[in-house]
């Protein structure tokens, strides 16, 4: 019976690794010189970042008239990109906090990198509303503090201000959670390095000494933060959805938006984690830690989120017709058959149709296939936001004010720039921080490995 259960639960770390091997393998990429491919990737991503920077500089200097918005379509590319990036960030918190509470031990292979992606993605997201404010240097007016600006005070009833609170809280908690999880690993790097590097890592690991008491405190705080971060996973995208759903615009105002947006966010986040980790595990020789088994599990999660999103699309369509509301009906007919129907059907194909192949185990365990599907999901989820935002706006109540929308080159370059920022940050992260949580992976090694290695390493220390 036990033998049976063992075959059903494949090992999370393959290659017969010992405790020492884990540290060596994960730290190896940080301790050798960067490879040519890393430099090449950095060159591309930082060029994109530079282009984006120039675009942002230009539009702040000139004004957001450089965007393709018009009186009817007042929100388009910017908010689409904002929601897209916030969504990407969600897998990080899902994997690090929610799966931690559910005791999903496989999360240890990907939680570090997913959390890092959260931070970078939220940073990318923040850029868009910041520019949209028109005067980004006054962004702190969003903070409700007693001020000398007379009666100028934030509107607490506006979901846009809730958004500001939700996302800044999310970013801070994610940052603290990520950094806290890093402490034991930073100490491991400190112990392996010399000179200036050692000094820096001594400082950033906050004097971690690996004692039982330190571990106890660490685990208590980790648990508490996981508990606190879990409502945040829901709250952030819930509030993003309320930016739309509190309005009275058909296609925006619908009650299913909060859970539907959360499911979509997790969906897109998992797709991005898969996209990056399938490459990273290969390039950084971490195949024994991020195994096919892990990819399989993430694919199952992605498939279930894709189905949930599909159910939400169907529910929206159903309710538009069930309600008998002509305006609702028009918006949904317009989505499927109007001038933006190509975007709608791209969304449905990428998010609902293509992921269905993940029902097959052969596909879930074929990394090339999974990579392609993850890219499709990334594209589909971008289009989902575009469809929701633009198709609900562009054909207004008055046919005389109907308009189209196309992004300008400035908008496209800004979006490209955020990809540059995201990938640049990720590449730097891969060089300076262990991409896999060393201490946590050690915890999921088989028990006999953990004990045996302790003895060996201690005897080596004594000998030294």
């Amino acid at each position, binding site marked *: 019976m036990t033998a049976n259960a063992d075959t059903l639960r494949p090992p999370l770390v393959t290659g017969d690794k010992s405790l020492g091997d884990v540290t060596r393998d994960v730290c190896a990429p940080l301790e050798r010189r960067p490879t040519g491919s890393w430099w090449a990737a950095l060159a591309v991503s930082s060029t994109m970042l530079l282009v984006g920077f120039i675009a942002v500089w230009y539009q702040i200097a000139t004004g957001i008239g450089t965007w393709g918005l018009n009186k009817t379509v007042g929100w388009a590319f910017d908010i689409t990109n904002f929601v897209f990036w916030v969504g990407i960030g969600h897998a990080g918190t899902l994997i690090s906090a929610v799966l931690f509470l559910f005791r999903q031990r496989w999360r240890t292979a990907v939680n570090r990198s997913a959390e890092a992606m959260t931070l970078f993605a939220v940073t990318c997201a923040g850029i868009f509303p910041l520019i949209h404010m028109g005067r980004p240097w006054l962004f702190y007016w969003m903070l409700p503090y007693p001020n000398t600006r007379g009666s100028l005070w934030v509107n607490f009833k506006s979901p846009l201000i809730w958004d500001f609170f939700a996302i800044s809280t999310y970013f801070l908690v994610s940052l603290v959670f990520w950094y806290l999880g890093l402490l034991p690993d930073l100490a491991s790097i400190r112990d392996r390095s010399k000179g200036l590097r050692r000094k820096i890592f001594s400082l950033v690991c906050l004097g971690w000494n690996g004692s039982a008491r330190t571990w106890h405190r660490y685990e208590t705080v980790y648990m508490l933060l996981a508990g606190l971060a879990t409502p945040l996973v829901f709250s952030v995208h819930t509030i993003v959805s309320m930016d739309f759903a*509190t309005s*009275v615009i058909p296609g925006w105002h619908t009650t299913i938006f909060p859970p539907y947006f959360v499911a979509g966010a997790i969906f897109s986040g998992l797709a991005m984690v898969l996209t990056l980790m399938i490459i990273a595990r290969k390039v950084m020789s971490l195949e024994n830690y991020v195994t096919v088994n892990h990819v399989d599990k993430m694919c199952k999660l992605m498939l279930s989120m894709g189905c*949930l999103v599909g159910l939400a699309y169907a529910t929206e369509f159903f309710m538009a017709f069930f309600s008998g509301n002509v305006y609702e009906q028009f918006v949904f007919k317009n989505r499927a058959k109007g001038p933006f129907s190509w975007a709608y059907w791209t969304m449905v194909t990428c998010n609902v149709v293509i992921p269905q192949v993940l029902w097959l185990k052969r596909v879930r365990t074929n990394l090339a296939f999974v990579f392609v599907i993850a890219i499709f999901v990334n594209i589909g989820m971008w289009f989902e936001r575009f469809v929701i935002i633009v198709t609900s706006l562009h054909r207004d109540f008055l046919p005389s004010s109907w308009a189209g929308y196309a992004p300008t080159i400035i908008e496209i370059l800004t979006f490209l720039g955020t990809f540059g920022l995201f990938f640049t940050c990720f590449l730097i992260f891969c060089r300076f921080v262990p991409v896999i949580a060393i201490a946590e992976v050690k915890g999921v090694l088989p028990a006999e490995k953990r004990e045996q290695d302790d003895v060996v390493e201690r005897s080596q220390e004594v000998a030294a």
Partner: protein
Amino acid sequence: MKPSNTPSSDRLTTLLYVTATVGAALLAVGAFVAPDRIWSNLLVASYYLVTLSLGALLFIALAYVSGAGWSVAFRRVPEAMASLLPVTGLAVVAVVAVRLKDYAWHPRGPHSGDNFWFKDWWLEPRWILTRAIVCVLLWIVFAKLIVGISRYAGPHSGTRSLTSNVRLSAVFLVVVGLSFSCVSIDWLMALEPMWFSTMWAVYQFSGMVMATLAAIVVLCLMLRQQGVLKGIFTDDHLHDLGKLLLGFSCFWMYIWFSQYMLIWYSNIPEETSWFITRTHGPWLPVFVANIIVNWAVPFLVLLPRPAKRNPGVMMKVAVLILVARWIDLYLVVFPKTVGSTPVFGLWEIAAITCGIGLFGLLFFRQFDSASSVPSSDPYLNESLHHHC
């Protein structure tokens, strides 16, 4: 040891017989005296029970699909609940069928017109009935298959039956997503056919899962007390069920609030109608109490760790949540079918006792008809030694 062998379970069986019989007799009388109220009560009760059995099957399916091992030791409990689907399903279809006219919104009514072609078609009485029958049949088939495979797995077929049940469960999750969305809209939301909310099915889903978890807690604790699951259903299982209960109580509140807040904020007359009936006049206290018992109390009580490991506390909270689920459904059905004032009297008590008695009797009979532990499940060992 079977529950029927112990004196305490004998007393329980007798008590369940009595409540079921008395409840049924009263309902039969009531059907002539106050048909509207009896029908509303039967709708609440049958929907309540069918979602308990469907929720139990969902619990089993989710455990299979996610590769969960912890819940295997007490899986016979949700399995017995799911085996009641033929009875509870038939009951709800019968209740809906006798009053199809209550769902038939008038196609040539004042709001009718071209825009309502879809509603005309969707709420056509025969079509409502067809959907109900198809959905319930699908659930019954999946319950028979999944529970059957689990119950009759031979001592050496553990892994093979596990694989077939994982596959069936995955398909069932898709089926339940679509079918439950349909019937929760048909049976409850369509009582007020001019009102609509895309959140409805999610809202009903959250209530279903919460009540199912509470029922599993109550039944497992009862069976443990009787000695059947002694040493099998441990405090660690209770603790994990407590966490899920806490989580789903919060999920229910999240969904409830999102629906309410968005309708309140946008303030569109077609949408607010549902809440206006329930937040004005004598329904308001019930409306507020619903939130307190479904979320505020369970949340505060279940937050500390020791509470989730304490059988006494867990029993009380689970019973409270089962009561809360009834209030939640009462608040959905009664303002439309019975009237502007909340009523609670003999007919409500009759339906509740009849429901509890019948469900309890059938549950224990189902539970007794199979071994009390799925002994050939490969995860059983893991579950028996589960620590959280």
